[in-house]
């Protein structure tokens, strides 16, 4: 018991300290490395709170996508000499910030104390919805309660959330031009690494998708892994001979939300309520949605990392 508490206290303090460093380090690259470490500690915190589904999602997205996304953006910022704000550049604005910094912590400390008090003063244990989830799990088509909530009980949220992801890509394509040119030929080591890892990542993604119906895992975790595989391939200099205008690419990108909307419309037609699955078909419907969502999530995340519209190979041989 003591050891567990010690672990929790150490982890909690570590989270706060690493977050502080990630937010206030003088060097932006250092800040990003601290942020990556922060994601790692968050995954451990999820584990301590009995939330392995979230730990998996955090691990896959944090280690595979967010870090690479931030480093890629930093590289492009440095190319336009905007990687850092030095004092000289920011001038008056920065000095004003420094002045406000001295006073700002007072109201924020008060706010934090108030919120802390609010958390501490919560009336004793409220059971939440765990009882309802348990009672209806049998009719949900899956036996992992988190997947049941995501894909069945609150499937409408998940539908909208897939749209959020698609929206991010649409937004990026609408403002960014074609993706930056791929890096030079990869070194043999990197080439070998990506050749070896990619199939393995795909395999593990399939495993997580399959196991997600009854154990921690599911479409998001699997999709993030696919996205990470895409990131690795892009970094290794691999290019797909596909332009952003290609219908096949767009079809995969919209597969997740598309299938979800189709199921919603169909169930609306059949039962008068959207996303109401007949219990006998719930399992298979969820699986179909999850497979489509996994593909879309993976491709979308990789597309977001690409940083622009894929150009296809018409120009370069």
């Amino acid at each position: 018991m003591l050891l567990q508490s010690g672990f929790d206290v150490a982890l909690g303090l570590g989270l706060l300290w690493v977050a502080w460093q990630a937010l206030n380090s003088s060097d932006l690259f250092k800040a990003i490395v601290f942020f990556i470490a922060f994601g790692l500690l968050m995954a451990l915190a999820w584990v301590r709170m009995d939330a392995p589904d979230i730990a998996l999602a955090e691990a896959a997205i944090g280690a595979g996508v967010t870090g690479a996304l931030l480093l890629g953006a930093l590289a492009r910022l440095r190319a336009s000499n905007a990687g850092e704000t030095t004092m000289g550049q920011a001038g008056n604005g920065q000095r004003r910030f420094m002045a406000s910094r001295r006073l700002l912590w007072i109201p924020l400390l008060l706010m934090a104390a108030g919120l802390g008090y609010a958390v501490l003063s919560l009336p004793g244990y409220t059971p939440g919805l765990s009882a309802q989830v348990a009672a209806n799990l049998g009719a949900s088509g899956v036996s992992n309660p988190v997947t049941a909530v995501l894909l069945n009980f609150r499937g409408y949220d998940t539908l909208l959330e897939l749209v959020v992801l698609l929206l991010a890509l649409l937004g990026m394509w609408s403002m960014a031009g074609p993706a930056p040119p791929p890096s030079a030929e990869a070194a043999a080591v990197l080439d070998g690494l990506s050749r070896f890892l990619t199939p393995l990542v795909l395999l593990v993604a399939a495993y997580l998708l399959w196991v997600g119906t009854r154990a921690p895992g599911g479409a998001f975790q699997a999709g993030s892994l696919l996205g990470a595989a895409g990131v690795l391939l892009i970094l290794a200099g691999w290019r797909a001979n596909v332009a952003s205008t290609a219908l096949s690419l767009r079809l995969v990108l919209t597969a997740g939300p598309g299938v979800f909307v189709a199921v919603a419309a169909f169930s609306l037609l059949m039962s008068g309520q959207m996303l109401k699955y007949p219990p006998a078909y719930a399992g298979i419907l969820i699986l179909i949605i999850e497979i489509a969502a996994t593909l879309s999530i993976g491709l979308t995340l990789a597309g977001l990392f690409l940083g622009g519209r894929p150009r296809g190979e018409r120009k370069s041989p």
Partner: protein
Amino acid sequence: MTPTDWIAALLLGMGGVFFLAGTLGLLRFPDVYTRLHALTKADNVGLGLIVLGLSVQADSWVVVGKMLLIWALVLLAGASVAQLIARSVLRRGIRLWRQ
């Protein structure tokens, strides 16, 4: 504690020592190459020992297999990342540390 427990505890303890050694190396070694060395070797051995220690007490062979796979992956990642970083460090002309 049973004899297997003792073996496991020994392996785990040694794993911890190797991790400590890796961290000490990371903190104390004088340049990036030596630190690279400390980190990728010591930690991977440490992880290997911990995996072995846990395997001794694992419930099933599936668990053992999964843990060994994880270890292999970490080894692979460590080796290739060390090589990539070392090469790019060298190319940037950061000098080796000499006594």
